[in-house]
């Protein structure tokens, strides 16, 4: 403390300690936060195609094609310990070989300060809905949304949203180009 530089050093060290305490305070203040929110998910025109999956085994696999309606207001989730929200939409279904299949069809990153009121109407899925076989026809698929909370300090939370939707794929393959959602909409 006798010289300028030692005073600067002491001041800096103390500032860092106070910052650490404040960060722990933020973590504790949001520790019991549940980050639940209700969302509305809709499905439009689900069809199944039988196509070659060049990204995997080059065999003919089932490809689900559908349009999504998403309606949610997640502005309430952004408290002072949320930096980024990562949303992802999972399709879950059962096949004879796997008791649980999960495919991510859509995701979105919402940073702090961006608009978290999401209303999307008839959007195509962001990722392909490939089955690893031929079991999508007349299969019951449940779509549910979940999000990761990326905090300023604390745990990386994984929260499933309230509200999911189920639909059944048709029992016929769609082959004609006219029935694909891109040309029909």
């Amino acid at each position, binding site marked *: *403390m*006798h010289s*300028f*530089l030692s005073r*600067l050093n002491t*001041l800096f060290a103390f500032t860092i300690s*106070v910052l650490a305490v*404040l960060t722990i305070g*933020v973590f504790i203040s949001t520790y019991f936060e549940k980050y639940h929110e209700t969302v509305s998910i809709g499905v439009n025109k689900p069809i199944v195609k039988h196509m070659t999956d060049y990204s995997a085994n080059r065999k003919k696999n089932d490809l689900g094609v559908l349009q999504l309606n998403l309606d949610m207001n997640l502005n309430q989730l952004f408290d*002072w310990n949320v930096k980024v929200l990562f949303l992802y939409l999972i399709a879950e279904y059962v096949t004879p070989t796997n008791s649980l299949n999960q495919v991510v069809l859509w995701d979105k990153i919402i940073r702090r300060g961006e608009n978290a009121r999401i209303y999307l109407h008839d959007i195509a899925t962001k990722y392909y809905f490939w089955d690893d076989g031929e079991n999508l026809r007349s299969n019951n698929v449940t779509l549910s949304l979940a999000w990761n909370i990326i905090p300023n300090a604390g745990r990386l939370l994984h929260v499933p949203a309230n509200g999911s939707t189920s639909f059944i794929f048709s029992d016929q393959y769609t082959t004609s180009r006219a029935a694909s959602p891109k040309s029909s909409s």
Partner: protein
Amino acid sequence: MIDIGWPFPTYIDYFGQKTAERLFQIVIILFSIIGFIAGYLMQQFSMTIYTLLFGVFVSALLTLPPWPMYRNNPIEWQKSSNLSKEIENNLTTKSSNKIFC
């Protein structure tokens, strides 16, 4: 340690050091409490950080320069005695002790 050649003495006395340390601790903690409450009310943690940094700036202004208030109690050194004579005296007493032993 880096040595900056200041054109003026940056030294502050012991009492000043104690005062300065106490002062910046109080200022920074005060600003951090205000910032924590403000950040919680606004739900914006960056607000807390900026308030704290402002407090650090204020306390840096208050304590880093060697203000005259930190130099009011200079150390009172003992009067310097004739050093060479003292050493001679010590030597003679030591040697005389050795003889008696």
